[in-house]
């Protein structure tokens, strides 16, 4: 029916009392893609994830995963999906193998299949040396790796990752993403991910959707979204500003038409704006005129972070 797409949503609505969590949302996610969903808290990310993961039901509209209806064919859908929740979902009084065996049996795998697949995943996630140790003795990063390995055990067609790298150090985050994208490449798994670490998505996501107030604002590749913003990232760092100077600078920047969004702090001004060179010249002139000691200024290409700031943060945040 729609062989090219793994997940489709048509006019999906969901309300909690008077609050509209999903507002007639339509979305298509390609097979084998790594799809990132970004938006502020309360935008509808968790509601959408829980709906796709068959943990909740929509009020209206249709949702399909691998051409299966998530409402009427829930058992078949569950066989095709894996999920890593925001918090860990492993029992710590057992070993990695105890966890894998239960997860495998929950997905109707026979023991030899669980062993083969488990060994492969434990090796991929570098947990094979500790597979017989109690999970309670693992570090946070190891527990998260095991959690994701469990979600991948039954070779799901779609893997949902709800903020999978929260609480991990940068090195562990990089390693984790490397493993996830390798497995996705090799097995063609579609990955649906929500995260607050946008720079990670920049490196791994094939497509990204911006969501706010239960609506999809935009969808595209990271590059497309950055290009659409058509803006530069500008940073000026200076000596500590007093409150009256911050006020003055705020008034000045807010009147610059090229500025899309900006944040002022006592020691820095971070902006997103078109014609970055012009903005930086005007600002440096303004700061020198007001006897502000400038430490350094920087003009660079906008990133996904800037896309986020431009779409979701209040202009002139302090």
């Amino acid at each position, binding site marked *: 029916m729609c062989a090219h797409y793994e997940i489709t949503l048509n006019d999906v609505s969901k309300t909690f009392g008077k609050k509209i969590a999903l507002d007639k949302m339509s979305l298509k996610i390609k097979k084998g893609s790594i799809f990132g969903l970004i938006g502020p808290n309360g935008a509808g990310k968790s509601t959408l994830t829980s709906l796709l993961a068959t943990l909740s*039901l929509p009020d209206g509209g249709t949702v399909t995963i691998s051409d299966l209806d998530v409402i009427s064919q829930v058992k*078949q859908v569950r066989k095709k999906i894996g*999920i890593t929740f925001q918090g860990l979902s492993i029992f710590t*009084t057992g070993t990695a193998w*105890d966890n894998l065996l239960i997860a495998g049996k*929950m997905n109707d795998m026979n023991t030899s299949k669980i062993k083969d697949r488990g060994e492969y995943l434990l090796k991929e996630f570098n947990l094979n040396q500790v597979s017989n140790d109690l999970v309670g003795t693992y570090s946070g990063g190891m527990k998260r790796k095991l959690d994701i390995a469990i979600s991948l055990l039954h070779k799901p067609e779609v893997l949902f990752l709800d903020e999978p790298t929260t609480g991990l150090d940068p090195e562990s985050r990089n390693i984790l993403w490397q493993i996830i994208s390798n497995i996705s490449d090799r097995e063609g798994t579609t990955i649906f991910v929500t995260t607050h670490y946008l720079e990670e998505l920049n490196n791994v996501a094939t497509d990204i959707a911006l969501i706010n107030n239960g609506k999809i604002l935009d969808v595209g590749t990271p590059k497309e979204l950055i290009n659409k913003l058509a803006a530069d990232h500008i940073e000026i760092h200076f000596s500590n500003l007093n409150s009256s100077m911050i006020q003055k600078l705020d008034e000045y920047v807010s009147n610059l038409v090229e500025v899309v969004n900006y944040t002022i702090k006592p020691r820095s001004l971070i902006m997103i704006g078109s014609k970055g060179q012009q903005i930086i010249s005007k600002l440096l002139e303004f700061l020198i005129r007001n006897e502000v000691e400038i430490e350094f200024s920087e003009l660079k290409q906008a990133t996904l972070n800037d896309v986020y700031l431009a779409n979701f943060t209040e202009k002139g945040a302090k």
Partner: protein
Amino acid sequence: MNNISLILLLVKKRLTPLIKNPIGILISMFQPLIFLVLFGTIFSSVFSTSGFDNTSYVAYILPGILIMNALFGGIYLGMSTLDDIREGIFSRYLVAPKSNLFFIAGDLVYIFIFQMIQSFLLVVIGFFLGFKLPSGIIHPIIFLMTPALFSCIIGTISIGIAVLTKKHSTMISVMQFLSFPLIFLSSAFMPSNLLPKWISIISWINPVDWVVRASQSTFNHSLAMNYYLLIVLSLFIAVFFCKFTYDVQRKK
């Protein structure tokens, strides 16, 4: 086959901490043990009161003590579910392509085994205080199985309440509210003909009383089948309730 393996793995998951720390089996039956020793000693003189058919007061109250222990054990089963919710395992159960009944069955098999072990230990202690098992082969087995079955009923309800409330404090309130009134509004410690009339009436609708009477009937020639039917029926209703609590987790 995979389903049986899953249930056994879930049982192993629950039993592993107890195997590693078997003293936990004794600690969790401490209260019923105290009741057995204290009540058995303090109220032994009641034995001379008319209305008792048994050879000693301990012999009379031991079935009730086993039921009391099963009630506490069953109520605490919901705490394990709360641990599963806290550890996030429960969320995995909810998205698994399996009927929730398998997860409930895992817990029930565990509590059944656990109660059988504890009942056996209490019987051994009771033996030194003058208790004797029913004669024959079948009746002693049924005598030990009866509290275990009862703990399955209470355990299932307890899991359901844990799934619905998701709070330790609520579970503790429910436990405190239910446990002692259910025990003392039954013939666990006193034959119904010696109980005040109003307690005797309430005991008719008290499941603890049904189980105590069923358990006591193992000492007779014929079992009180009507009570056993009530127990089995209650178990089915409890499982149905528990499954319902799992099903409603897929929020509308």
